[in-house]
């Protein structure tokens, strides 16, 4: 799996959604299921999968599917489409 596939797999599994639902509008504010527990689980899975450790500020601002990719790029995780 490439990075995008890994990234998408975590989202589709944790949120029980189809890949087609992952877009600009998939955010902490708009997705009901995205509560603090799920947020923590998401961060842990991303850290384990990509072998990184996110800074506090990045965890707090990891507010959406699209925005999350931008944050991970800071940790040298690239998403070739």
């Amino acid at each position, binding site marked *: 799996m490439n990075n995008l596939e890994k990234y998408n797999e975590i989202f589709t599994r944790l949120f029980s959604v189809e890949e087609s639902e992952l877009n600009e509008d998939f955010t*902490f504010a708009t997705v009901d299921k995205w*509560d603090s*527990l799920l947020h923590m689980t998401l961060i842990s899975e991303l850290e384990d999968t990509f072998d990184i450790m996110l800074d506090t500020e990045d965890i707090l601002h990891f507010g959406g599917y699209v925005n999350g990719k931008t944050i991970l790029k800071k940790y040298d995780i690239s998403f070739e489409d």
Partner: protein
Amino acid sequence: MFLNLDRRKEDELVGVDSSDAVLTVGELNEEKMKLSSLLSARSIVFILCNNTVGALAAYLNTVRLDAVPVMLSSKTDKQLLNNLYEVYQPAYVWCPDGNDRFFSDASMVYQAKGYQLYRTSNALYDIHPSLELLMTTSGSTGSPKLVRYKKGNLEANAKNVALAFGWTAEERPLCDLAMNYTMGLNVVNTHIYAGATVYLTNENIMSAPYWDYIKKYQLTNLTQVPFGYELMLKLRFTRMDLPYLTTLSQGGGKLTDKTFETLADYAGKTGKRFIATFGTTETAARMTLLDPALAKEKIGSIGRAIPEGMLMLLDDNGNEITAADTEGELVYSGPNVTMGYAVCRTDLEKGDEFCGTYHTGDIAVRDADGCYYIVGRKSRFLKMLGYRVSLDQIERLVKDQFRIEVACTGSDDHMLVFITEDTRKDDILSFVSEKTGFYRSLFEVKVISEIPKNDTGKIMYKNLI
């Protein structure tokens, strides 16, 4: 007089919230005067709470006007709310603006600070003269069971907890735990009693605005349930620059020893206080706290009784255990012990059934220094994310919904639901997650061939694997 409010100057702040709205003592008193002709004393009043100054004013003035609040979340599941409404037939409902859809037969009589007061079509009915407030025990598991607070419970616990913590009017506490949750209400009450301003927020701990709020107002006190501390550690908050923070307090369930130690260490190194406490809804919040100077030495302890309170341990025969390090049921006596439970309207006429003594159902030990440690539970409930969840209640809900055999066990962070029909596994997982309002990963549904029972048909929980 309630929480020393009558002693305060008109321009003092009682509360601030994360929309920067404020509530002064003068505004609160003016509202009280207006409401005195609109809100009947000794009536039942649903308050659909969120953490804003509007909800704070609604709560404080309802109690001050001798009406009886039922503290509920503004996010209460519609079905549960309708059920509670049918059972307790409140004469009034306070709710946030735009949240009035449940009460079509009600008319609005007052509106201020984002909250509306509705008079419903329900008539007033007789309730016990000592009844002060009603609180749910179980998050949102659909039970209409309420704890009956008597007059003086809120004041006594506010006073004694404020005294034990050494709160002054200078405190700036973060109030992010819900006001309709016993520990959340206690944080509010203890600080108002001490003459301080409370800082309310609905922001999520895993979001930037939550931490911005703490920094903006230089908040001094945090109170969290174990889950909140797990999240904070995940955020590596021990590396954050929080120079104004002086007290970290914990309640609402047992921390893991590792987390307890991490917090005690962090507090020790940074010159802050870490204070573990123990409370229940039935005791109008807190019963004990651990002296912060002992935190590093007594990992996992809940400490000793608060002022005016008394703890003891009872053996299976109900005899007091005097020896150290011996397990027994933790029993508490004090002025904050409530009157008992209600499951229906007529229960609100009942008097004091606890009579100042509450059997917690928790198994504890006391060390040679008189500090207590919770080691297990006598009764069948879990404390998930700080909320008490009855395993029997979940079983009943699943049975009613799916008409199948079911048995629930597990730990505070992982409930196990045993069933015998493979086909319903995912539906049941969704159902228990929805009914409790907790995320699916806290539950596991296991399919087994048969629910183990003894000769009398009782489920043998110890045999469930």
